[in-house]
């Protein structure tokens, strides 16, 4: 079982002492993540790949599976799939397409074109921020289905509906299915995996990877076992629509299986549906009557065999990946690479900016803190010029601004898209109090608030708040809170 330091990580829910056990059982989980590729057109036809438009406005003979229609592979989809493979440390290999035959109204041809025994990407891994690696078995290309809307049933459910309506705008949209190995041992690792994967996909421009819009979808294969025991029977959890739900669904499912096992019952291999409203998984279909998909090589397509030059050009064009960017920022700031601030800044894509502030002379560690706190609404290209922020930080670290004043100046910089920190500070009348001036004010306040001072000296710590407030007021905000606290403590002892 893996270890990771929860104190450094915000995205944690389940208690974890390094060997995650639920009532004495280990969790074994593998994730299958489907991502819609950010192409202009569909995988096998020239209709637009666009979300949210009027139903059935992006259709063509191929999308609808009309008689006589033939698929032609989208080169850009292949290139994005290769980017994904290379970013996940996979081997990109020559591959083929198969037909997976099954009837469903949102599957127009009654078969899905997918990669089967020769996928484009195999044998990679994804490194979590904690440093643990999760194996990637394969990442293959396939086409998406249309969308069914169930009419007349309670809450849009299939059961009890009067009929269903089908929109084929999504049918044929290129997907890459990323099949992870069952290396995930905690619900938190599952969340980390999906969060990290999402960041990679966005960084390399392969997908917008929005779970809420369905451009990234996650199925979890969950089983439990006693430590050292053989793998248990697994269930596949579908319909998980957020990173938060993923952890909940996995934990619920593991506990459900443990309760059954403890009661001496057997786990049935099946597909289960996560219900967000009741926080449970429900049987969708049993695998006992296993689907017979009759896979065979798609005769309408030819093999996909990217040469080394193409693969290398895709590899060379990959941007720096989030993990690498976190390491770079961690090294520059001295903060741990999986600290929240580092994670947040890299996720926002503001790490280049933070480093630029450093190059402009500002302390990188302060830049990290300020950007994290004040630039949440800004994108990867903040409006404040890096030099301007550096100017403010230089004043702050040089003792010319208190931290409160620094925040005020920063607020001005953000509000006006930059500016000269020295001028702003002067205009605000910010000059740091020298120590004798501060001590005079402190003495003044102690005299005026003798009751609070007595309480504070008697050990009543909360009395200090009133004293500090009065001192700040008397100094018109120019006093540095930390210095005031230190002075009060020194005077008491």
């Amino acid at each position, binding site marked *: 079982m893996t270890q990771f330091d929860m104190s450094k990580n915000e995205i944690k829910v389940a208690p974890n002492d390094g060997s995650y056990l639920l009532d004495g059982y280990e969790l074994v989980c593998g994730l299958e993540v489907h991502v819609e590729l950010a192409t202009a057109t569909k995988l096998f036809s020239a209709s637009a790949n666009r979300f949210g438009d009027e139903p059935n406005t992006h259709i063509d*003979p191929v999308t*609808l*599976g*009309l*008689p*006589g*229609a*033939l*698929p*032609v*592979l989208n080169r850009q989809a292949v290139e994005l799939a290769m980017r994904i493979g290379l970013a996940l440390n996979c081997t990109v290999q020559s591959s083929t397409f198969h*037909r997976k*035959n099954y*009837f469903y*109204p949102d599957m*127009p*041809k*009654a*078969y899905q074109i997918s990669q089967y025994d020769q996928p484009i990407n195999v044998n990679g891994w994804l490194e979590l921020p904690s440093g643990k690696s999760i194996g990637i078995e394969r990442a293959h290309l396939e086409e998406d289905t249309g969308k069914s809307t169930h009419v007349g049933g309670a809450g849009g459910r299939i059961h009890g509906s009067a009929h*269903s309506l*089908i929109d084929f705008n999504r049918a044929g949209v290129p997907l890459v299915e990323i099949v992870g190995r069952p290396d995930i041992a905690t619900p938190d690792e599952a969340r980390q995996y999906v969060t990290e994967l999402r960041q990679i996909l966005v960084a390399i421009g392969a997908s917008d990877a929005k779970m809420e819009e369905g451009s990234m979808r996650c199925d979890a294969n969950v089983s439990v076992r006693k430590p050292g025991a053989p793998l248990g029977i697994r269930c596949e959890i579908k319909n998980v629509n957020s990173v938060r739900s993923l952890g909940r669904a996995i934990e619920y499912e593991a506990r459900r299986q443990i309760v059954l096992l403890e009661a001496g019952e057997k786990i049935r291999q099946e597909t289960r549906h996560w219900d967000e409203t009741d926080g449970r998984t429900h049987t969708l279909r049993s695998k006992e009557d*296993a689907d*017979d998909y*009759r896979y*065979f090589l798609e*005769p*309408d*397509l*030819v093999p996909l065999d990217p040469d080394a030059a193409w693969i290398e050009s895709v590899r060379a064009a990959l941007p720096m990946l989030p993990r690498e960017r976190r390491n770079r920022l961690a090294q520059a700031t001295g903060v741990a690479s999986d600290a929240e601030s580092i994670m947040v800044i890299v996720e926002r894509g503001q790490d280049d900016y933070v480093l630029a502030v450093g190059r402009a002379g500002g302390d990188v560690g302060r830049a990290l803190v300020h950007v994290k706190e004040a630039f949440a609404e800004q994108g990867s290209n903040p409006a404040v010029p890096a030099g301007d922020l550096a100017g403010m930080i230089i004043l702050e670290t040089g003792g010319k601004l208190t931290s409160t004043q620094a925040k005020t100046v920063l607020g001005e910089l953000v509000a006006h898209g930059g500016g000269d920190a020295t001028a702003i500070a002067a205009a605000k009348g910010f000059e740091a109090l020298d120590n004798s001036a501060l001590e005079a004010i402190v003495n003044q306040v102690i005299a005026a608030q003798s009751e609070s001072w007595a309480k504070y000296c008697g050990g009543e710590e909360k009395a200090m708040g009133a004293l500090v407030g009065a001192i700040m007021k008397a100094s018109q905000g120019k006093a540095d809170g930390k210095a005031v606290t230190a002075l009060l403590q020194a005077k008491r002892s």
Partner: protein
Amino acid sequence: MFRQSLDWTVEMTTIPSTAAAIADAVRSGALKATDVLEAHLARIAEREGEIHAFNLVTTDEARAAASRIDADVAAGRDPGLLAGVPIAIKDNMCTRGIATTCSSKILEGWRPPYDATVVQRLAAAGAVTIGKTNLDEFAMGSSTENSAFGVTYNPRDITRVSGGSSGGSAAAVAAGFSPISIGSDTGGSIRQPAALCGVVGVKPTYGTVSRYGLVAFASSLDQVGPFSTDVRDSALVLEAISGHDPMDSTSIPQGPLSLRGVLSQGVEGLRVGRITDMPGGADPDVTERLEAAFDALQAAGAIMVDVQMPSMKYGLTAYYLIAPAEASSNLARYDGVRFGMRVNAPDTNAMYSATRSAGFGDEVKRRIMLGTYALSAGYYDAYYGKALKVRRLISEDFDRAYTKADVLLTPTSPIVAFPVGAKSDDPLAMYLCDVYTIPTNLAGHPAMSVPFGTGAFGLPVGVQIMAPTLGEQTMFRVAASLERSMISSGGGR
């Protein structure tokens, strides 16, 4: 051959019987496309009742198209290689806005929203589509008896079948309804009806003519090709419809075939192969004509060589496992959801079964069942997988044979046209009609049937010329030589 009888006179204008002559006359202004059309419509009105070559005669659209050709000529625009030539299209090729049924109830009334590439190219070459011809349902059959809309009778003897599955297209040309027509050939569906009706029929190399818009039967075997009264017209049509199509991934990236220029080259020094271990079963009247063809080519300077094809006898088995397997998947899209017929039922699954059971005929159901079985879990290796290996053996047989011979000659069909109903109750007996035509589909090679005299009951016999991949030029030289020898021996003209 009945060439002379096909020339006739309309309003004092002589209409030539070949497409080449018609196109020349129309392009030069000597003949109006509208007159050509009316003459052919008149012939249809006269004999269609007893032959039933068409599922639909598109009189209005044809008249409009012919008028446009005449207007082009009047305006000095070249209307193309096939200017004003009436052409009949097998009813499994999509024609925009014009019913395309595949002779199946399941598609009755469906009007495709797009044109097949072949249909587009014919129109661009100035051909005038006069109708959609009858076929065995979804091209599954060898007699055009498996049509939901009735049998197509052989114009040479209307008590007999026209062959199949492109029986309507063969009969249309044989009856003089159009000088040329288009068929599709998956296991002999152009060549066998051509032989039975006494016309020329060509299956080009797989990938030479686009399959886009051809309703798929078996995607790795299907190929589109022409029917005509003489060899030159088939060359002409192929030149107009062949060449790379970016809408078909299996289309060979090369320009159109160039064939008319080689027709006069003769066969001096060409090596013509006789398959010494050819599967037996051809009737004596048929083998007699094959021997006559060998003699004629030898007399014209060709060299006779013996070749062995030890795996040819397994062709039927390989074909009747591979084609149904692909068909079972290709025909899954007829599900009553997006187009065509639907039989209502309380839920979607029941609707599927009700629709497909009512919409498909017996032979189609049989092949879907056979194909589904051959692909299903537990049987794939024994049937489909094995058939693919046998396909390789047959292809390797051809490769070896073509090191010794430039072309191979066989009968097209083991028998002449048989009486309607003679084989309807015995699917296997019907399958045996394809024994000589199937191997080239498995290998993807070109092959054509040329009328070469008559056999029993004075019925036409066809000789099949086979050539290696892209060996169309050699094949057409041999075909033209056989045609010349028939003319000089007084066999028809």
